[in-house]
């Protein structure tokens, strides 16, 4: 710790790419149909709170990663157990994103290629990136993540020509319930998943601006989600949104005379890649700190291999993927995203950590 640093803008882009992640293929808040924008706003507000909470935990425990904080606050035994479950959670998260990615490419572009092959090839790149270290990851996101909003804007601007701009009406047709449900889902996936960054925050070179950075990237993600939602609903109309397996992909094939599908694949690979890299890095880093290994790189290959196998095993078919992302994930994530961080924040507020002497 303390040697490798990433800059503020790199962390900003890393978080943005992470939050966009696979939500770019599974349309944000399409369950609540025309009220998706409301869900996005509610989830966004909650997301800012959550991410700020994670950032405050990092600030109250300077230069400590999640695993170290857990051991500090919960004691050695309980802390270790909780840390192990977090490592599992991060690995599982990476596996799920692998699966989203694989299903998407198999459905849309490579119907005859086995999904295992696509995922495995992607995994090789991930291993390389993670082994190159956090600085390289920061630079990757600096180069690649800005492409995502730019391409999204281009795709949108070129398809919206003469369409119905009142497509999001009526408001609250089916009551508030589906809206709340969709926003809770959106809160857990992707905003709450930013708990991963508790392993990465200590690398930031200027800790003072941490909360500013996290808030700003959450805000830009909310903005992009809103834009994508309105784009989809204007082009496809609400009746159509829940029909398509991959809504944004459907939008991208509608451009007349030009095939935008590859552009969409590019967006997908960038955002999904950043997300997997962050999750894997967090898991690997946590594992090495837990065991006390000198170099985290020893574990990368085995953790990635594990999550690849997990991704293929964990779901039988595409509906399970969506059902998991839409229903189960939220409940599964409650302890990791809400309860434990809340306890950590509480404990940290009671007793401020002594700054590590060797740092900064």
């Amino acid at each position, binding site marked *: 710790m303390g040697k490798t640093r990433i800059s503020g803008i790199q962390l900003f882009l890393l978080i943005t790419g992470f939050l966009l992640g696979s939500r770019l293929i599974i349309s944000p808040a399409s369950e609540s149909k025309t009220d998706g924008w409301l869900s996005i706003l509610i989830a966004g507000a909650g997301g800012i709170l959550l991410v700020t909470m994670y950032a405050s935990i990092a600030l109250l425990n300077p230069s400590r990663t999640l695993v170290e904080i857990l051991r500090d606050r919960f004691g050695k035994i309980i802390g270790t157990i909780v840390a192990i479950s977090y490592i599992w959670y991060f690995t599982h998260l990476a596996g799920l994103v692998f699966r989203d990615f694989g299903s998407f490419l198999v*459905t*849309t*572009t*490579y*119907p*005859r*290629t086995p999904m295992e*092959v*696509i995922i495995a*090839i992607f995994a*090789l*790149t991930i291993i*390389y990136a993670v082994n190159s270290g956090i600085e390289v990851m920061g630079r990757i996101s600096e180069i690649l993540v800005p492409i995502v909003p730019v391409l999204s804007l281009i795709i949108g601007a070129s398809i919206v020509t003469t369409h119905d701009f*009142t497509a999001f*009406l*009526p408001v609250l*047709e089916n009551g508030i319930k589906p809206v709340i449900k969709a926003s809770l889902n959106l809160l857990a996936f992707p905003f709450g998943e930013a708990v991963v960054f508790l392993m990465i925050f200590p690398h930031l070179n200027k800790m003072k601006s941490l909360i500013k950075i996290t808030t700003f990237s959450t805000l830009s993600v909310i903005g992009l989600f809103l834009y994508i939602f309105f784009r989809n609903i204007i082009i*496809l*109309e609400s*009746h*159509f949104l829940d*029909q398509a397996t991959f809504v944004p992909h459907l939008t991208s*094939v*509608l451009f*007349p*005379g030009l095939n935008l599908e590859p552009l969409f694949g590019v967006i997908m690979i960038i955002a999904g890649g950043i997300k997997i890299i962050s999750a894997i890095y967090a898991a690997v880093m946590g594992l090495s700190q837990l065991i006390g290994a000198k170099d985290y790189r020893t574990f990368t290959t085995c953790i990635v291999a594990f999550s690849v196998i997990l991704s293929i095993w964990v779901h039988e078919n595409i509906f399970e993927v969506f059902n998991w992302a839409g229903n189960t994930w939220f409940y599964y994530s409650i302890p990791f995203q809400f309860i434990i961080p809340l306890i950590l924040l509480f404990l940290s507020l009671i007793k401020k950590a002594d700054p590590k002497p060797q740092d900064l």
Partner: protein
Amino acid sequence: MKTNKLAIIFVLSILLAGCWDNTDLTDINIVTALGIDKDEDGKIIVTVQVVEPAAVPLTSSSNGGGAGQTKPVSVKSYKGETIYDALISMKSIVDKRLFLSTVQVLVLGERFCKDGINDALDYLHRNNQAEYLADVLVARGTSPEQILNIQADMDVISALYIKGTVENTAVRAKVERKMLIELFKEIKNKCRQITIGQITKLDGKTVKTEGTAVFRDGKLVGWLDQYQTRGYLFVADKVGNPVISFSAPESKISIEIIQSTGKKSVIFKNGEPARLSVQIRLEGNIGEYIGKEMLSKPEDIHKIEKMLSEEVKKEINMALNKAQKDYSSDIFGFGEYVHKYYPKYWKKAMDEWNDVFSRLPADIRVEAKIRHTGLIKSPMKKDE
């Protein structure tokens, strides 16, 4: 050394990934048009028009006779239980894999449409090869097979010829251009009924795309002629630059419409729909004027504006009447307006909306403006 090995693995893996789903151009049959119909027993007949690229003459000036004996397009039909079944079974009579991403025109048969298209088109939506931007048409008085079998003399590939006529006619607002994706949207949309452009066969070389097929609950119920189609398109706000001709006493006038916006709404009274309201704004230029009267004062223009708006109103009325009285089908999408602004009423009345729509009286307001008169002001005639 380690990085070298890694590099090799990466290069290999990227190349392998690219090849897995690779299909060479020589291994596929390029399908340019697809026809779907049903026979008397309810079996699906799928017709494909396949292009042989080598036989397509490179320049239009090279006379067809010299370009060899092979025909540039060939048409095959096959029966099956479903569209997918028929397409796959067809492999027993075609030599290569059928490649659907190049489909330009999709022609549906009358019998197929009468049995309902809501569920039947699933395959074209599910398959990742289907071209969502293909133009959809309904063959009237003929079968898709016959339409695709024409030997067009305007273009060697008759699918492109058909697509061209659709594009032309859509600008004139005599046929509605409906792409496959728009059709899917309408099938899902409960607030409006489906309409598809109509195609008829004139002779062995020519087709005509004019008119509209009207559906109710996914089933073909009738047709709109070219003028009713234009009236419908004015309301649906989908007109390009049509030319509207009408005759006044002692003169004949053709107006080219430059711009048109159509707005529709439903006026509610006491929580129940009371009237339909249509508002059209037009802007046009005088394209042709055959008559004796001089055109010089603004009042002369106002007179023509009035006649134009009456003419448009007449066409809209015809279309509305047909949709309300004969077909009882809300093709205009008034239901969308109700759904958006009166969601509570819509929930109640969703299922019988077509009947409610058929009962409502309509207010049609057309505001026509004529801006220019072309290069000359008054009609061509000898000075007196």
